[in-house]
């Protein structure tokens, strides 16, 4: 490909992530107490793997993602990307936020080009790359629109290609489809899977939907209630694209739902006491 690393699909080596005994507490400002979010979490994510993090709300899955992104630092333990400690956010780890986090003052084209410009690419290059990615998710013709003029599903597509365009080693997605309606969600899941199969990036995907986790993942990581550690890792051995009404899918759905319900009950019990 003629564009070099940025703007190409899956040209840069996919990343391997290692979390070793990661511990994280944070202050609950309202309660004035210290909350233990992660308690010695250990997890390895293989290159080109699609891993979903599933757990009851408040189990620390978003905290873990923020640590991987470099937005937050662990209190103890190590987080390594290809053997190098993660210390700050950077373009080798693309983050897709639940609330899109598109720059509202930039139009769609400029939003997609943002990371490419930061890499120092010439305007003609960034323009061509952005056009290509916009076409890939069916958003050609929306270049000059501003984010507020687009639907939630369209905004999330822009947020996704904004990071794919800079060709990161890892894709970190924090409940990216939680704010869109069910139909759009299904379409976005399919699109994400298609893009992932083309790029084969390492993806860490946080969700609280069992179906979404099974549909997308190579391995589903079920986390315990707070303080979060890994409760179970379930490899999904179903061919893609997956049929969520098939027997095989149902088998996984039943098993994982059982695992997660135990943890959800703990959250309720803790809240009630």
């Amino acid at each position, binding site marked *: 490909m003629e564009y070099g690393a940025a703007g190409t699909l899956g040209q840069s080596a996919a990343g391997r992530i290692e979390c070793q005994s990661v511990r994280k507490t944070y202050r609950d400002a309202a309660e004035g107490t210290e909350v233990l979010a992660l308690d010695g979490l250990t997890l390895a994510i293989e290159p080109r793997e699609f891993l979903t993090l599933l757990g009851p709300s408040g189990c620390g899955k978003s905290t873990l993602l923020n640590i991987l*992104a470099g937005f937050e630092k662990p209190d103890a333990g190590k987080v390594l990307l290809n053997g190098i400690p993660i210390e700050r*956010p950077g*373009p080798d*780890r*693309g*983050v897709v936020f639940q609330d899109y*986090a598109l*720059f509202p003052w930039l139009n769609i084209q400029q939003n997609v080009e943002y990371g490419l410009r*930061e890499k120092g690419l010439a305007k003609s290059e960034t323009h061509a790359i952005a056009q290509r990615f916009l076409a890939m998710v069916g958003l050609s013709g929306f270049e000059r629109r*501003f984010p507020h003029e687009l639907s939630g599903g369209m905004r999330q597509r822009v947020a996704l290609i904004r990071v794919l365009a800079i060709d990161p080693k890892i894709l970190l997605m924090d409940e990216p489809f939680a704010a869109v309606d069910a139909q759009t969600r299904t379409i976005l899941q399919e699109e994400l899977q298609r893009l992932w199969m083309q790029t084969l990036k390492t993806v860490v995907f946080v969700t609280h939907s069992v179906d979404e986790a099974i549909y997308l993942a190579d391995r589903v990581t079920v986390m315990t209630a707070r303080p979060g550690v890994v409760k179970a890792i379930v490899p999904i051995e179903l061919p893609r694209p997956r049929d969520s009404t098939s027997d095989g899918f149902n088998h996984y759905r039943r098993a994982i739902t059982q695992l997660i319900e135990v943890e959800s009950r703990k959250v309720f019990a803790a809240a009630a006491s």
Partner: protein
Amino acid sequence: MDARRASLNGREAISEKARRPLGQWRVALPHAPGRLAWYRMARRALLPVVLLALWQYASTAGIFDPSFVPSPMTVLRSWWEWIFGPRSELAWYSGTWLEYVWLSAWRVLVGFAVASGIGISVGVLIGWFELIKDMLDPIVQGLRPIPMTAWLPFATFIFGIRESAAIFLIAMGSFFPIVVSCTIGAEQTPKNLVRAALMLGTSPRMLLLRVVLPSALPYIFNGLRVGLGIAWVLVIVSEMLAVKGGIGYAMWTAYQFVRIDLIIAAMFTMGLLGLASDRMLLVLNRRLLRWNTGLRAR
């Protein structure tokens, strides 16, 4: 048959409207085309026209004492003479309007430009860097409660009856709303936008330019509008008391010569100047903040 069709059409029109998403209703209201636009213009003009007519009637019918309250026509005639009359030693005001408007506008422009330049940079820096906030915020918050008119004796004492006194006062007065607004704007920068920029490769040093400043723009413009209003207040005050020339100076002289017609003409002049400058800022606002329009209710 025709009546039935009409009612059917009516029903279709209603259901068509009902099917429209909410957003289209919002857009349809303020931009109604054609006849409706004229209707709205007339609606807007109604009250001012009625008030002017009443004022004229009260003057000609002798309800107002003409030496005390001049009629609108008298005001208009004096205003005309103030604008277009020949320069003369005998009538101090004749033909001076344009020069005085220019003087006042120039003072506002310079004072406001200084205040905007310093106010925006200081405000955004205070809002973004904790160190700068700790160092500068006490001074800003400490000086802010002093009413601007209270600076007047100090300013004239330091600068004398000169341009610099007026410009100091105007800059000082419009600085505070600008700086406060910009501080809030920078403080309100959404955390996820900062994170997104860092993730996309923006260096921490560039965050201010790439994220904080654009994200604070709506607040900055609010501050500028308030500051501009205050600048016009202070140009009048300083021209009445501290400098020569300008609309405020004319107003004060008219007062001393007991020319209420000219006082009223000067008031209208100020109103028009304030309105025009505010509109200019609004046009700039719309161009720079097109991305922000979708967040408004109407």
